[in-house]
């Protein structure tokens, strides 16, 4: 499995990916999704395996990196680390920052490795199942993936669905792939090839975040001093091993669900840790179990989220949507054929995730103090630099200024979407799945001679439609009314 990775080039890519991921994870507002989007144009100079190894190592390390800022400055470096703040910061305030970070590091690594094992065994199984899929089944599956958007984060399910539909709409810009008829091009030749993934991804994540940061300039972070990261004691292990394993299972399962990711996983992992704890009253006041529960869950979601991404081509989370974009721009189409035709490529991905987890353990353990200092880089210097990289990276893809303007436009759209409670993640997932949804729908209708009811006569497709219905109805039933605004 690891053989393809034993080349100095790939190990170097892995090292830089892990290092870069940690830096991104530590910086509030960046994180592996935005960072992955920023690095996408650079991956064009790499071969497909190196590119995806870089992106997955950023994903693994970035997810962990968020815990460092969550514990030391009470600001999650990534949304997935939000639950870590609840107990990480109070414990750090008690003078036990090193212990908190040590537990976060160990539980992250265990969760991450656990999820890679799930990925190794479950992804080929899912891909095998997908061999049974025809166009109607893929259409139903893509619809299921999109309806899962309704339950992303804690925002309104309806707003998430609007954002997803907007993403699909963007995918329809350009020449229709079946008839070559122009759609929404308005006479602009460059639009006939469609709107690229990268300008939209960089705009929605990096540029919109830059605008958000422009509204938060007076924010002051209170930092807790860190002497050194401490490995958990035997007592800590005894107290948390069950929590770590439980959260690893929860995180991997949530990660496998299309569109769900580390944020949901960490919140559920945290609340389950509290529910099963012998000392639930300590949660929120610096409980070591709380840190373990949240961190094991969010890192185990990384491998879980890669399962549908690789086996079905349906992103399991926002960052895997970026990784999927990376695969697509390198001409790799995930799905069952990838498992049959390029197993070495997949072993490379599995192995890289495993090594990335070990690498961020070492880097996090010895370098957390240095990484924590990165938060001292002021936004007034950091974001103009990120802008320069975003602009050049976006321009580099097709050497078109239009792409840069599209990126800026989506930055502004993304800012206002976030301001009014619309998540930007569904837009990306919609954009990625748009072609699949439309293509499979139209091809199915050709097969069925225009008879829509035929979808319901295919058992697998029908199952996905029922699951989609449940995915739509479930958040509407379970969430409080005020979330639908």
């Amino acid at each position, binding site marked *: 499995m690891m053989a393809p990775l034993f080349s100095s080039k790939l190990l170097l890519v892995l090292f830089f990916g892990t290092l870069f991921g940690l830096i991104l994870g530590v910086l509030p507002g960046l994180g592996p999704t935005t960072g992955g989007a920023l690095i996408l144009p650079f991956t064009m100079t790499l071969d497909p395996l190196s590119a995806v190894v870089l992106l997955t190592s950023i994903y693994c390390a970035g997810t962990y990196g968020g815990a460092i800022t969550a514990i030391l400055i009470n600001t999650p470096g990534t949304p997935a680390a939000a639950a870590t703040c609840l107990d990480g910061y109070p414990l750090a305030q008690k003078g036990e920052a090193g212990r908190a970070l040590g537990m976060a590091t160990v539980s992250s690594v265990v969760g991450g490795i656990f999820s890679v094992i799930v990925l190794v065994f479950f992804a080929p199984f899912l891909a095998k199942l997908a061999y049974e899929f025809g166009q109607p089944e893929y259409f139903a599956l893509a619809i299921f993936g999109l309806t899962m958007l309704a339950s992303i984060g804690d925002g309104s399910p309806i707003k998430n*669905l609007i954002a997803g539909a907007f993403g699909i709409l963007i995918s329809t810009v350009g020449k229709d792939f079946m008839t070559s008829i122009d759609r929404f091009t308005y006479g602009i030749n460059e639009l006939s090839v469609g709107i690229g993934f990268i300008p939209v991804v960089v705009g929605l994540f990096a540029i919109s975040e830059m605008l958000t940061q422009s509204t938060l300039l007076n924010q002051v972070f209170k930092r807790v001093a860190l002497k050194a990261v401490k490995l958990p004691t035997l007592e800590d292990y005894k107290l948390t091993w069950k929590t770590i394993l439980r959260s690893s299972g929860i995180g991997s399962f949530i990660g496998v669900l299309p569109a769900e990711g580390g944020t949901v996983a960490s919140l559920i992992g945290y609340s389950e840790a509290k529910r099963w704890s012998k000392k639930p009253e300590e949660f929120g006041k610096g409980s070591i179990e709380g840190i373990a529960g949240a961190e094991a869950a969010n890192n185990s979601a990384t491998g879980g989220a890669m399962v549908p991404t690789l086996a079905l081509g349906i992103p399991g989370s926002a960052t895997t949507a970026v990784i999927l974009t990376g695969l697509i721009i390198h001409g790799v189409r995930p799905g069952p054929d990838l498992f049959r035709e390029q197993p070495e490529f997949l072993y490379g991905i599995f192995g890289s995730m495993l090594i990335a987890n070990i690498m961020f353990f070492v880097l996090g353990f010895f370098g957390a103090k240095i990484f924590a200092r990165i938060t001292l880089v002021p936004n007034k210097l950091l974001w103009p630099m990120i802008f320069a990289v975003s602009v050049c990276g976006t321009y580099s893809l097709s050497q078109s200024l239009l792409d840069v303007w599209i990126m800026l436009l989506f930055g502004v759209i993304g800012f206002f979407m976030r301001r009014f409670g619309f998540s930007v993640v569904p837009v990306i997932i919609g954009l990625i799945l748009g072609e699949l949804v439309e293509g499979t729908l139209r091809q199915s209708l050709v097969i069925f001679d225009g008879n829509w009811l035929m979808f319901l006569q295919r058992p697998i497709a029908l199952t996905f439609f029922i699951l989609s219905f449940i995915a739509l109805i479930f958040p509407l039933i379970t969430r409080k009314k005020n979330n639908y605004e």
Partner: protein
Amino acid sequence: MNNVRKQKRANKNLPFFVKDEFKVSFIIIFISSILLISTFSFDIVPPILNRGIQPATFPKALLVLIISLNLIIYYLSIKKPWKVQKKLPKTFFLTLLSFLIFVIISKILDFFLAISLLSFFVSYYWGERRIFYLALVSIIFPIIVFIFFETILGLRFPPGIITNIYYQF
């Protein structure tokens, strides 16, 4: 929690057309409607070439879905108003303005100059006053990025007053 309630109460007393929920829904429905109308001008495929549905049908369905979901959101917001958002600070508008200036300068004058000026102004508006750091952000870093993209990635930047000088060397 109390603040959210206060904000929501304050929002309830505003006339409907100044409320965020109305403005957001109106803008989305307005743009969607324009796009929906434009789909009627898409070419129609003759039945013999048509496979399944017409090219305009799918985007039309999406736009109708977006409009319908927005109407639901607006209806729900009448019962439960959104919380009033804080006013956007001056720095936000200056950043937005600098994007616009970036677009104009990159098109008319020079791509590098546009990046450099935007970096300078954004850094300055956001509070940086030290000359060295302003130069770092607006000159040194963009040069490093340019050289990196140009030499390592083999990128050719669009011609402009500064880029042309660079390419002459």
